[in-house]
Each structure stands twice: as C-alpha cells, then as structure tokens.
C-alpha cells in the first residue's frame, strides 16, 4: 500500500475570508433572510467549528463557501480568489447519503481524481491510500449500501480529501450517527486531519462536538445568522476522548452553552408562566 499522505510543512493554502455575507431565499413576502452581515476568517490549516441553533443559517454559510448558493451581499474569498461556483478545491462532506450508490467505495474515492483526468493506476493507488487513512482498507469493492452509516461517512471524508482541497466543508457529517459511532468518528477525523492538514469548516449544533474538534468555535445568532462570538479552544492536541470531562472543557462549554441557549430562546416562543 502507498504511504499515507503526510503534510509536514506549514500550510500556505486554506485561508478563507467571508465578508459581510448576506443570503436570502424566496421572494417578496415569502423572502427569508438566512444570513446577514456574516463575517469570519480562517487561517490555513485551521479547524473551525460553526455552531448555532437549528435554522440559524450554518449550512447556508457552508453552501456559499462551496459555491452552491450565490450570496446577495458580501464576498467569500478563498486564498485570494472569490468563490464563483462549486469546485474540487472546496470539498464538501454531507450529512448522509451523498456517496454515488452505483459506484464502489474505491470508485467513489477515485471520482475527483478521474474528473481531473488522472490515469487509472495513480488514481487507484491514491484512492487506496486515503481509504487506508480512514481505516477502510479491504472495502474497496463494496457498494455504499453495504456499509454502515459511519463507514459511509469515512468514505465521504476520503473522497473529499483525496482531492487535496484548500478547505474541507463538513455539514453535520456525524449528525445521523448513533452516539458511540459519533464519538469514534470524531476521534478518527482528528487523526486523519493530523495526517492530511487542511482547513476545515465543521457545521454542527452539538457543543461537545464543536469544542472537542475545533481550534476555534464560531457561535452564530438565531436567523438571520451572524457571528455572535468566536471562542478559541486552547486544549492541547492530540485530544483524548476524556478531555470533555476536564474543567477547562467545562468552562468553555458553560460559556458556549449560555450563548446557544439564548439564541435558541429567540427562535422558540418563551415558555408560559
């Protein structure tokens, strides 16, 4: 098997600048502002979590970086280039069911390389290396439907990373998994990210998940979403699973939880007294 791809040097790519982003859906009276005045910047190789109550526009921000939606206001700039549409330099890992069902695991991971016109032999060896990285060596010929949800998400991560994107966009990638699998996947993601250093924007509504994974956690307001606070997580890496029980973690969690609860309360009607 080919050596796992390793990125030792300081990254120079993966700087994302989201400036005064505004996105609305629908027209006239049905117009809904999903995001307004959203500004956020990531450093190359940074793991950024985007946290907020449901419906706050987290996914909309991610879709704007991916190029799936066009902003009504503001700009998204990746390494100095404005985003104009989708591209392989900004890979997306979806919540679930985004593998091509008719392609084997190997062919799914090879897809991006095939699109770049890379020949079969180097394509296959690269895809195999990334499958090994996510612990799926031996599953090359399986079809997605034959895999568990967690394994499918690992294929999704390998399929994105094999393109060496400037940024990996993750839209609640573990949200559909059971609690134990989710914990395992979080650890696996951090291990993979240590090997293949790339900027990550990770959307979640799970506070523990955001704090466990990220260098910084951007807390969003209720809709129309903007940044409420950016919390720097100074927990040492590699982070063991037990880190979530430490006082430092608890302090951060209390701070973030208070903010998220406040924002959720603005969406839900206040309880009757």
């Amino acid at each position, binding site marked *: 098997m080919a050596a796992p791809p390793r990125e030792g040097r300081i990254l120079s790519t993966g700087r994302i600048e989201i400036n005064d982003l505004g996105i609305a859906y629908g027209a006239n009276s049905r117009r809904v502002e999903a995001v307004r005045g959203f500004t956020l910047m990531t450093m190359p190789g940074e793991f950024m979590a985007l946290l907020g109550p449901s419906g706050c526009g987290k996914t909309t921000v991610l879709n704007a970086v*991916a*190029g*799936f939606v066009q902003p009504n206001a503001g700009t998204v700039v990746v390494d100095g280039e404005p985003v104009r*549409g*989708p*591209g*392989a330099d*900004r*890979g*997306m890992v*979806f919540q679930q*069911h*985004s*593998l*091509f*069902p*008719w*392609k084997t695991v190997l062919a799914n991971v090879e*897809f*991006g390389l095939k*699109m*770049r016109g890379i020949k079969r032999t180097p394509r296959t060896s690269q895809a195999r290396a990334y499958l090994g990285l996510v*612990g*799926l*060596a*031996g*599953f*090359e*010929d*399986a*079809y*997605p*439907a*034959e*895999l*568990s*949800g*967690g*394994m499918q998400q*690992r294929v999704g991560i390998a*399929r*994105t990373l094999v*393109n060496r994107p400037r940024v990996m*966009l993750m839209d609640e990638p573990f949200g559909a*998994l*059971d609690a134990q*699998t989710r914990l*395992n*996947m979080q650890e*696996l993601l951090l291990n993979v990210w240590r090997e293949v250093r790339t900027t990550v924007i990770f959307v979640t509504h799970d506070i523990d998940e955001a704090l466990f994974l990220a260098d910084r956690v951007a807390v969003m307001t209720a809709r129309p979403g903007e940044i409420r606070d950016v919390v720097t997580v100074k927990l040492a890496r590699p982070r063991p699973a037990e880190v979530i029980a430490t006082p430092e973690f608890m302090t951060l969690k209390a701070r973030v939880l208070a903010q998220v609860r406040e924002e959720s309360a603005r969406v839900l009607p206040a309880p009757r007294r």
Partner: protein
Amino acid sequence: MAAVPGADTAPLVGAPAALADAAPAAPAGQWRRRVRRAASLGLFFALWHIATEWDLAFYVRFQNIPTPAQVLAEAVDLFGTAGFYVHILASLERIWLGFAIASVLGIGFGLLIGWFRFAEDTLFPPIELLRPIPAVAWVPLSIMLWPTERSSIVFITALGAFFPIVLNTIHGVEGIDRQLIRAATSLGAGRAAIFREVVIPGALPSIVTGLSVGMGVSWLCLISAEMISGQFGVGYFTWVAYGIVKYSQIVVGMLVIGVLGMLSSALVRAIGARCMPWLPRRAKDGS
C-alpha cells in the same frame, strides 16, 4: 448475498456492514410452498380438462375449446414443421427491431427531456399529445405510412414500447437526488461529467422499469398488429387458425405468445440486474 471483503481485518467503527436481506426461509417451508404452487398448476389443468372433455356450457361454452391433450398433440405436430418456426421468427424479429428502436429513442429522448429544460419544452408536448392514443389505433395510419407490412408492424411495436420507456426515463432523471449532483460538482465534475456519471446511472433503475413495461406493451402491440394485418407472425398464425377452424392451433399460438413474452421480459430484467450490481438482490423475486 454479497460478502464485504476484509470485513474481519479492517478496524470497524460503527456497526458492521448491514447486509439487508434476511436469511432465506427454512427448507421445510420452501418445499411446502413449492408443493402448493405445483398443486395450483395441476388444478388449473384439471379444470381445463374437465371443462373441455365434458363440453361444459353454462353461458360460457367449452364445446369448441380443445382439451389440454389435444393442444399438446397439436404443439408436438407444429414444432415438427418448418412453417411454424417461420411465424415465430417473424414475430421475434419484429419484437427485437421495434423494441430496440423504442429503447434507443425512448432512453435518448427521456434523458434529454428530463435533464434539459429546452428539450423538455421542444420535445415533450407532442409526446404528451400522442401518448393517450393506444398503439393499435395507429394500425390503419401505419399501413398508409410505411412501405412494407414488416415496417408498419415494427412501427406499431416500437410505438407501444416507446411511451413507457420515455416516461420512466424522464421520471428517473427527475428523481435524481440533487445532493448527488452537488457532491459531484464539489468533486470537480463539469456538466458533461455530471450527465455521464450521475444522471445516467441515477436514472438507470427507472429506465430498466420502463424497458420491462415497454417489452410487455410491445408484445401486446405486435400481436394486435399481426392479427389485423399481416402474412406472418404468431399473432397472424393464431388469428388464421380461428378462420380455418383449427382450434387447437389457437391455443398453441396463445401459449407460444405467453412463453415468448415471459422469456423476453425475463431477459430484460436479467440484463437490467446485470447493469445495476449495486442494487440489493430481493429475497422474494417475482419469477
């Protein structure tokens, strides 16, 4: 059941591969079901035999209907003559030609109409207009349109198969998960690659359904057309047998039509399954 290679060596996170199909039914239960099915067929032939042997007539009249034994004897006779094969081959050739033309046009038009708005606006309205007309109603016009009897019958056969194929293809394209298209674009796929790598395989299950329905309809149309106009074919043979009072031949013709229709549908399904190895095999298969 498909085994996942290396399932015991790779580190597992999450549940092991969920290979959906339940274990096959117990052998004892299988045998009981086979016996029941055989008994059902046996009862059918017994009733046929009794009704025709005793010349039952209670509003429905069985006096002129041949017995199973007469039909069997007639079949043995017919399959010993070269002339019968000429009819079968004529029908098979028309089915093959008509179905092939309908498949190419139906899948091609369906993919275009389903994917491109311009194609939908320009190609779909006439299809919608003509669709409710049963293909058999085209027989007189078809005779005028086409220079030979063979071409006019192939036309009817293709016409019948075309509509289910084109509609199911459109349906398949429109049902493709938008997220898969997004995934493809964020992996660097352009428009042509999306069409080739996502739209066509994504629509394939629906296309195969359309082909399967289309095959059934094309037999229906072929036999009707052969009965109305023609000098060859199993449909023609069956109709002529009525005219020349060879009642056993009618039933042989009907049975041949049924068997050929069944075999061609099975062939379409088998080729379809071969083209879609990712679909889980059904434990309870129709045939």
